[in-house]
């Protein structure tokens, strides 16, 4: 009780919970699940873009993309570390991912078909991620909030790079402009779905909001993303594929159409265009790396044994 009061108090005063602080089991579990999903999303999210590193059409873009995908691996690492501060184990979380027992963002189950997708992912997907994550920089759990600060900084850099690639392509050949519009058409709705189901159907949100793990509802964030993106699309010269999209003077916000929630449900439940590809690739990497990890452990154990032996010998010599 006393502990619960302390916890509630910390939350109420917008102060941070730290790893050694007491926390309710539900809070811990919810956080682990959310952080792990977030980490998994970073790792799986490397795949759709990573496949274009070898084919990037200029060395500058190759370097930018390579660095971006590397940043995602880094985000995955911080986030797994944040989850470990809550008592989770990285190897266990990876196992859950490759057995399909933990989710990752549905957006990464869509295929990247042309190099324009790299730009649009930067613009839409990193943009949506930022909308989602900027509030998480004020998440009540300290390590998660701090990881988010770094992640968001890098993602806003990625978003600008994606948009800049699209700008360059739109100034290029007709074929390039077509590629951009085609990529926008394919990624727009899946990006809107990144914010999750509509608030009415989002059962976990209330608790997360109360615990200040989350700070805004799915629909609020989705609206924010649309409002941010529409003027960017105009500047770029592309059409967002939603006939219902228009400025609502009264609300001071954009109205927009309803995403195909059954599609989201299908993708989340495992039947998206690339779910099985993504998991299979991650599993293969994990399994093919097993002998390397085993060798590293064996070597570490030998080194420890040698150090111990040396210490005993030194003691013996001293005696």
């Amino acid at each position, binding site marked *: 009780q006393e502990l619960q009061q302390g916890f509630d108090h910390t939350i109420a005063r917008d102060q941070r919970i730290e790893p050694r602080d007491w926390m309710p089991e539900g809070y811990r579990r919810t956080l682990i699940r959310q952080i792990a999903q977030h980490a998994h999303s970073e790792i799986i999210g490397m795949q759709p873009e990573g496949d274009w590193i*070898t084919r990037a059409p*200029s060395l500058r873009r190759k370097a930018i993309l*390579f660095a971006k995908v590397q940043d995602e691996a*880094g985000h995955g690492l911080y986030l797994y570390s944040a989850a470990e501060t809550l008592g989770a184990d990285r190897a266990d979380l990876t196992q859950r991912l490759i057995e399909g027992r933990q989710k990752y963002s549905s957006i990464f189950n869509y295929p990247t078909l042309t190099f324009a997708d790299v730009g649009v992912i930067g613009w839409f997907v990193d943009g949506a991620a930022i909308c989602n994550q900027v509030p998480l920089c004020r998440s009540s759990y300290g390590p998660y909030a701090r990881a988010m600060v770094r992640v968001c900084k890098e993602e806003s850099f990625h978003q600008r790079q994606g948009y800049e690639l699209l700008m360059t392509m739109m100034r*290029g050949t007709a074929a390039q402009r077509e590629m951009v519009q085609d990529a926008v058409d394919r990624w727009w709705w899946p990006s809107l779905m990144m914010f999750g189901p509509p608030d009415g159907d989002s059962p976990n949100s209330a608790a997360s909001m109360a615990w200040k793990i989350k700070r805004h509802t799915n629909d609020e964030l989705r609206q924010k993303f649309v409002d941010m993106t529409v003027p960017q699309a105009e500047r770029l010269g592309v059409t967002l594929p939603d006939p219902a999209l228009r400025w609502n003077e009264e609300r001071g916000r954009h109205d927009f159409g309803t995403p195909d929630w059954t599609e989201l449900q299908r993708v989340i439940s495992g039947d998206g265009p690339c779910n099985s590809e993504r998991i299979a690739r991650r599993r293969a990497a994990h399994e093919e*790396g097993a002998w390397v990890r085993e*060798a590293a452990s064996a070597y570490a154990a030998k080194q420890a044994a040698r150090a111990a032996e040396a210490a005993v010998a030194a003691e013996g010599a001293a005696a």
Partner: protein
Amino acid sequence: AAELAGCCLALGDDALVSAQRLAEWCTRAPELEEEMALANIGLDLLGQARLLYARAGQADGTGRDEDAYAYFRDADDFRSVRLAELPNGDFAFSTVRLLVLSCWRLAHFDRLAASADPVLAAIAAKGVKELTYHRQFAAEWAVRLGDGTEESHHRMRAALDRVAPYLDELFAARPGFGVDPAAIRDEVTAVLRQVLDAAGLPLPEAAALPGHGRAGDHTEYLAPLLAELQSVARAHPGATW
């Protein structure tokens, strides 16, 4: 200037081809830490390639930019060593190759940092720091795998056997490097022996392969590597990215 251009081109091609192979590890590494390290090394080499190509374009008088070298030459115009273009194989092979190539490259860059060409000297000086880290990473893994499990030891031996015939090519005298190949050979061999000793691994002897990557002789693996690398750029002539 032709000598300078040739030197920059050879070193640039080694770096680009190596970076491409490292990029293939992306999302396939044994752990996230190695994922990041391999990407980091690939990025360093890609950066070196870009600077070296830019210098080559000035020195050979054609004024070509980095992308002209990377995307619009065919396999027989590449001057990279064949070791760089071999497929990745397993993590043991990639580790051994990285160890060898980074030892060689570091020995070279060390000397080129005193090159008469100030641009090349600056590129080399910057590269030395990067390559020291690459070599360190590869050496640590070589020791871990050589002295790890039976399986990892066995894989390392197989990797060394596979690499051995491609070593000689690295030390063949080529015009334009202004570096004594015999001295490089001694230095590199000494470092390799030191690492492999710590790993409990032999450095196998093998007959050198005929031909020379620096003269445009390549394996069957380079053309497909370039076909992938160049596919989007060539599909859109006249586009900027």
